[in-house]
């Protein structure tokens, strides 16, 4: 029995690793023998533990393999000495040390901030226990002219998959609609509304079986049709301190029984809801919904796609065939949704470009800071040579010298980390505002980030410290001690590193100028619509308000400051994802079925948005009431159809209704400037209103809104008054780019500061080394300006080289970024010139400090020494 039990393998390996081969065999044999003896008295566990203890206790100077890595064990015992000499060396060169530590600290702070940002992005939708098994089903459809991918799909996909395939554990469909919450059981039209809610979702009864949120009260079992589960804060809003369970809440025309309370959703989800309402048939609310499948444990979702294709072929495709459209269902893992390509009707996305961009900027700044550290320690190696010579003469090995200088590098890096963390904590609130995140400062000390930072610091210390360490370890003691000091040799390395630093800084500066210009172009370019403030007022989605809304609309027109009003239907105001339907159209003389964007508006729309007509007229009131069929198209549509005389054309809806083209408007930017103009069909319709658009005078707009709200109250019987400005929504489309520019500028400032700090340190060293030369120059009658040039010439040349190198690098980088835009700013020469000039000036000012100090010294005090 005991024969089978072996000593722990890992302990043996450790022993074999450290032990001097001359001692290994018998010592290991002794250990094994002891182990066997102990097995007679102790449990195998205790014997193994004691074996480990033996092995560890024998890790002593005399047993350690002396030949390994050239690292003599005394290096470990000399560590105290290294710390002491490093400390003295650092204190002796205070400016250098400060520059290294500050520079690295700044670089690290940028690195920390960006790590926090990236780390936060990576948390999205991963907190549920089963999130790895949840997949979202999306729909793509293509025809000859268009290609779309929608985040929504038919709710039938879930039940069909579950019925046919064993690997599906469950499914759910949900859809979000702004709703009005009321408090009593009176009929909808007479009841008193409590509030308007944007984040109430309708779902089937399976929602909480798929998304496993923890209930504070109630349970997911009671989530049946016509019940509602509230988040804590909504429960407090509507029920205050009462217990909401068993009470009911009127929402639109339905009554919902409260059956559960869950905690407010975490920040890291894109599907953020305030309440979930179960209804028996989600398709009553919308024919298209968000659909999710939950796979069983151990099943292979990766191989499910063919089955999903079959489901699509047997359901939606049958319908699609009629329109010569092809489609497909796609699966997207819940945790990948946040990073996927944005689809139509999709939830907010992380910007992958920003993520990559920020990460690479962080890395570049860290490189600049690392080079500072490396250059400054290289510049001081000359002074260290005699120390190394003496150490070697009294027996230090190469490995020990390397170890000594790596220790010094590590000390600097650890100090910089402390400074970097402090700077990062200071700037974190600002970063949070810019990126609209809520990263907590304690995150810096979370296990993951700490581990990551400590790892990076050790890597950095080795990367930046190893070159001087190896360089010094190669010093020949005889030569040093005989006084034959070799001072040159590494200047080329230093020079190319400076060029690299400034190439990076210059590239970042050029990029930031061009990014800002591109953004200005996007934000300031005319979208082809009015510049006046346009209010988007939420309208109750209920037919009983039809006449009230229309009366209100005409009442507003009586106000002197209201220029125009319009009632619009589903997603029919700029910035929204338009509805898509299939139409039969005559393209280039041939009739065919094609899907097109369409919006539904009334006759006031064109006036409200101030759209320009190329041909034809606006809708008549009869047309908006549905008496006559008509359509207005934009120029992109006419171009696409290659119509010669658009006013004689007809568009036929798939349901067979003909609409005559009555007008053609000029192109305008319905979506952001990032995309090109799309063909749009505009239909007259005001029976399913979603928003009331009101264009008002820009002057005194605050007062105007007050009056508009007053009118709302008289007309709309206490319905909640909610509105946004169109311009805010348009600007929100560029939020990613705005955030990017701000973050970029911030880091560019850090980058150039760090690079200049390095320059400052280097010039301080070189001017100290060249004091004698300065003295002689002054004696010979050099002027201050000549001295300045003599001392800075080398560095200015390097910056100029960096400038030349950075031009193509920045040009290529920026033009590939500009590929994403339809409208591009020109990569003009002045951006490069400005960047070069700014860098040169900043660098010159930095260097001047030392040069002026050096040139003010009385030459006699320097030259007297000899």
């Amino acid at each position, binding site marked *: 029995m005991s024969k089978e039990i072996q000593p722990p393998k890992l302990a043996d390996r450790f022993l074999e690793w450290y032990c001097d081969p001359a001692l290994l065999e*018998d010592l290991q044999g002794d250990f*094994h023998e002891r182990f066997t003896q102990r097995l007679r008295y102790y449990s195998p566990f205790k014997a193994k533990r004691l074996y480990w203890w033996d092995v560890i206790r024998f890790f002593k100077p005399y047993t350690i393999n002396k030949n390994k890595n050239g690292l003599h064990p005394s290096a470990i015992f000399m560590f105290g000495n290294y710390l002491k000499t490093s400390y003295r060396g650092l204190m002796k060169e205070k400016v250098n040390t400060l520059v290294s530590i500050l520079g690295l600290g700044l670089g690290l702070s940028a690195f920390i901030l960006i790590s926090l940002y990236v780390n936060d992005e990576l948390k999205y939708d991963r907190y549920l226990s089963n999130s790895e098994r949840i997949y979202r089903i999306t729909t793509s459809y293509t025809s000859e002219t268009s290609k779309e991918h929608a985040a929504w799909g038919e709710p039938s996909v879930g039940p069909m998959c579950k019925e046919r395939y064993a690997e599906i554990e469950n499914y759910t469909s949900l859809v979000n609609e702004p709703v009005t919450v009321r408090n009593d059981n009176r009929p909808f039209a007479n009841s008193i509304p409590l509030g308007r809610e944007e984040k109430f979702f309708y779902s089937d009864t399976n929602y909480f079986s798929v998304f496993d949120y923890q209930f504070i009260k109630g349970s997911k079992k009671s989530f049946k049709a016509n019940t509602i589960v509230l988040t804590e804060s909504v429960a407090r809003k509507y029920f205050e301190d009462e217990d909401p369970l068993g009470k009911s809440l009127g929402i639109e025309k339905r009554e919902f029984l409260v059956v559960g309370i869950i905690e407010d959703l975490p920040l890291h989800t894109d599907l953020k809801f305030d309440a979930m309402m179960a209804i028996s048939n989600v398709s009553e609310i919308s024919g298209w919904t968000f659909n999710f499948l939950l796979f069983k444990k151990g099943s292979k979702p990766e191989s499910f796609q063919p089955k999903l294709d079959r489901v699509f072929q047997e359901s939606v495709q049958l319908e699609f065939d009629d329109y010569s459209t092809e489609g497909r269902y796609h699966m997207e893992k819940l945790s990948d949704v946040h990073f996927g390509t944005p689809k139509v009707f999709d939830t907010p996305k992380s910007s992958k470009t920003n993520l990559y961009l920020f990460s690479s900027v962080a890395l570049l700044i860290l490189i600049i800071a690392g080079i500072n550290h490396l250059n400054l320690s290289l510049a001081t190696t000359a002074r260290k040579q005699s120390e190394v010579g003496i150490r070697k003469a009294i027996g230090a090995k190469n490995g020990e010298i390397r170890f000594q200088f790596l220790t010094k590098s590590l000390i600097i890096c650890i100090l910089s980390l402390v400074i970097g963390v402090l700077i990062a904590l200071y700037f974190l609130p600002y970063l949070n505002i810019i990126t609209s995140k809520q990263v907590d400062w304690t995150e810096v000390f979370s296990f993951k980030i700490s581990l990551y930072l400590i790892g990076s610091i050790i890597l950095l210390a080795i990367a930046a410290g190893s070159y001087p360490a190896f360089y010094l370890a190669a010093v020949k003691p005889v030569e040093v001690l005989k006084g034959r000091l070799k001072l040159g040799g590494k200047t080329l390395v230093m020079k190319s590193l400076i060029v690299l630093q400034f190439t990076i800084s210059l590239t970042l500066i050029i990029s930031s100028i061009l990014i800002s210009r591109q953004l200005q172009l996007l934000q300031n370019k005319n979208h082809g619509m009015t510049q006046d403030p346009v209010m988007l007022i939420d309208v109750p989605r209920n037919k009983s308000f039809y006449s009230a809304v229309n009366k209100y609309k005409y009442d507003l027109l009586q106000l002197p400051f209201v220029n125009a009003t319009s009632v619009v239907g589903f997603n029919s105001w700029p910035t929204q994802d338009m509805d898509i339907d299939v139409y039969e159209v005559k393209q280039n003389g041939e009739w065919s079925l094609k899907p097109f964007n369409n919006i539904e508006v009334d006759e006031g729309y064109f006036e409200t948005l101030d759209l320009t007509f190329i041909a034809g007229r606006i809708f008549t009131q009869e047309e908006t009431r549905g008496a006559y069929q008509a359509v207005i198209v934009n120029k992109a549509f006419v171009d696409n159809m290659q119509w010669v005389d658009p006013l004689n054309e007809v568009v036929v809806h798939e349901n067979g209704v003909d609409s005559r083209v009555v007008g053609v408007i000029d192109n305008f930017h319905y979506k952001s400037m990032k995309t090109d103009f799309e063909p749009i069909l505009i239909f007259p319709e005001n029976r399913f209103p979603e928003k009331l658009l009101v264009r008002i005078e820009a002057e005194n707009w605050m007062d105007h809104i007050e009056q508009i709200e007053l009118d709302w109250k008289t007309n709309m019987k206490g319905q909640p008054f909610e509105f946004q400005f169109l311009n805010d929504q348009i600007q929100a489309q560029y939020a990613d780019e705005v955030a990017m520019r701000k973050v970029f500028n911030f880091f560019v400032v850090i980058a150039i500061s760090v690079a200049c700090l390095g320059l400052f340190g280097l010039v301080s060293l070189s001017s100290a080394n060249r004091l004698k030369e300065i003295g002689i120059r002054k004696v010979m009658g050099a002027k201050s300006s000549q001295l300045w040039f003599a001392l800075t010439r080398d560095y200015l040349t390097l910056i100029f080289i960096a400038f030349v190198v950075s031009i193509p690098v920045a040009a290529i980088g920026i033009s590939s970024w500009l590929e994403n835009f339809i409208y591009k700013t020109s990569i003009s020469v002045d951006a490069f010139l400005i960047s070069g000039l700014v860098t040169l000036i900043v660098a010159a000012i930095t260097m001047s400090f030392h040069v002026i100090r050096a040139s003010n010294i009385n030459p006699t005090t320097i030259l007297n020494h000899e």
Partner: protein
Amino acid sequence: MKGTNLGEFEELVLLAVAAMQDEAYSLAITEEINRITKRNITFGVVHSALDRMEKKGYVDSEMGGATKERGGRRKRIFKVSAAGKNALIKSKDQRDELWGMIPNFVLISNEQRNSTPKAR
């Protein structure tokens, strides 16, 4: 210089090596010393003492037989070298000389001494 004289513990180990002959490997020596002195000397101390003495030249070593319970690894059998022998003999001679100088009554035990009436 340090090392020309045997320390008390080194002497003990060296004596054990001499006494144990072919069985003198570090683990067995540790056990033997502990058995005789009733002390609890650790294996590590003995091992490092042997290593030290080998460097000083008091003991020689060669690899001996392997056993199964040692995982097939050989033992390092220590032998007292000529220098070690000299050091042991020198140490013994010094002690013998001192023993010879002790008058008999000094070695009467403390109890016996305390029971004798105090003379004053």
